[in-house]
């Protein structure tokens, strides 16, 4: 019988199975296995497992596979238009930030109706643990279709993943001027922000960003031709502006 001291470690035996040993160590293992038939059977079984996995892997790799068609839901613009948009952005950037004029914001002491309702909705649903949203973000298509129908205008849930925020979902809300929508986003630190959307009253042309703060909740809001938006979050103004700018750019295909 082989002395105990010559028994290779279990690590070494498995490294042998995986072909990771150098010549000298391999020799040690092979001598040990030659002297220990029961261990040799066990190690041979492990080697066969690996061999079987490889047969399987080769068979699978040679079999054709059809990738499922995913809906490109984060793709707002056709390819050509997107290229044009990039060119436009570069040109505008060269233009010394002229374009940013449209994103200027002013600080206000009072609350507009829009911002106030957004802030109230934010404070109502953000602390919610069990039911933060009515329709969760994994049913985004359904959510957006439903809210668009109720608001009477096509709404979209912008993707904020680049800023670290994932869509939790959304809900329909009552407001003083008809149905409103709220989209909720959350980052890895469980910080939540909400985007409040309302159908615009006709005849308003104000597009500037405006900012109000009430206690911890800051709200950036702006008005487009069909919808009014208000982004609420317990964030510093600069950070909230960054998010609002990203949303603005996405929603207006900039």
């Amino acid at each position, binding site marked *: 019988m082989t002395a105990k001291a010559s028994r290779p470690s*279990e*690590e070494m035996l*498995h490294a042998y*199975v*995986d072909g*990771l040993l150098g010549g000298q160590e391999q020799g040690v293992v092979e001598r040990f296995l030659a002297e220990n038939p029961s261990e040799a059977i*066990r190690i041979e*079984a*492990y080697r*066969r*497992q*690996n061999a*079987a*996995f*490889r*047969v*399987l*892997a*080769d*068979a*699978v*790799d*040679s*079999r*054709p*596979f059809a*990738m*499922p068609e*995913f809906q*490109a839901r*984060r*793709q707002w613009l056709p390819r050509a238009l997107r290229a044009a948009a990039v060119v436009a952005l570069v040109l505008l950037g060269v233009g010394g930030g002229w374009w940013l004029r449209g994103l200027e914001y002013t600080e206000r002491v009072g609350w507009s109706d829009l911002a106030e309702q957004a802030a109230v909705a934010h404070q109502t649903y953000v602390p919610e643990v069990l039911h933060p949203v009515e329709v969760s*973000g*994994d049913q985004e298509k359904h959510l957006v279709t439903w809210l668009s129908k109720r608001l009477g205008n096509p709404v979209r849930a912008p993707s904020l*993943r680049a800023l*670290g925020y*994932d*869509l*939790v979902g959304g809900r329909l809300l009552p407001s003083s001027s008809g149905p409103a929508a709220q989209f909720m986003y959350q980052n*890895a630190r469980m910080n939540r922000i909400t985007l409040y959307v309302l159908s615009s009253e006709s005849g308003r042309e104000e597009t500037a960003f405006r900012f109000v703060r009430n206690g911890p909740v800051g709200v950036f809001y702006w008005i487009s031709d069909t919808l009014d938006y208000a982004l609420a979050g317990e964030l510093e103004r600069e950070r909230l502006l960054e998010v609002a700018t990203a949303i603005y750019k996405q929603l207006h295909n900039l």
Partner: protein
Amino acid sequence: MDEFGRLIEKEVPRLRRYAHALVSDPERADDLVQDCLERAWRKSHLWVRRTNLRGWLMTILHNLHANASRRYSAGPAMVPLDDSQYAGATAPAQADRLQLGALRDAVQRLPLEQQQVLLLVGMEQMRYAEAAELLQIPVGTVMSRLFRARERLRVLMSEATQPTLRRVK
């Protein structure tokens, strides 16, 4: 297809090997991969950037299979399955075919953490340190899981093939 789509597409070959190690019918194994990709796509908001996509996808696939294994199995577990359905591959010999069946049955009975290590090392021929990095666990843990998985697999497979061998005698 967006960035996330491209990222998961890169993982498809690995997911397929994993699925085919769990499901004997190649069509159903690919169905499982399709289901996994679709679920990953729908749940992509739950995937936090920078975390391990491969491990996340493997977990989805494992869970889908564990929760609906009947959907993906072609029939009673012990029916010998025809691996000649794999187009292009050299048809495995009868003994290999039996062994592949036994292998799948055994792999399914391992806990997820052991399946992952076993397939990464045995099938993907990954080094222990690579597997450790991918699964974000210490190398020592990779090894202990691997050793347990191999031994359990050996016992399960010898149980599965023993009666056949006796008859051959």
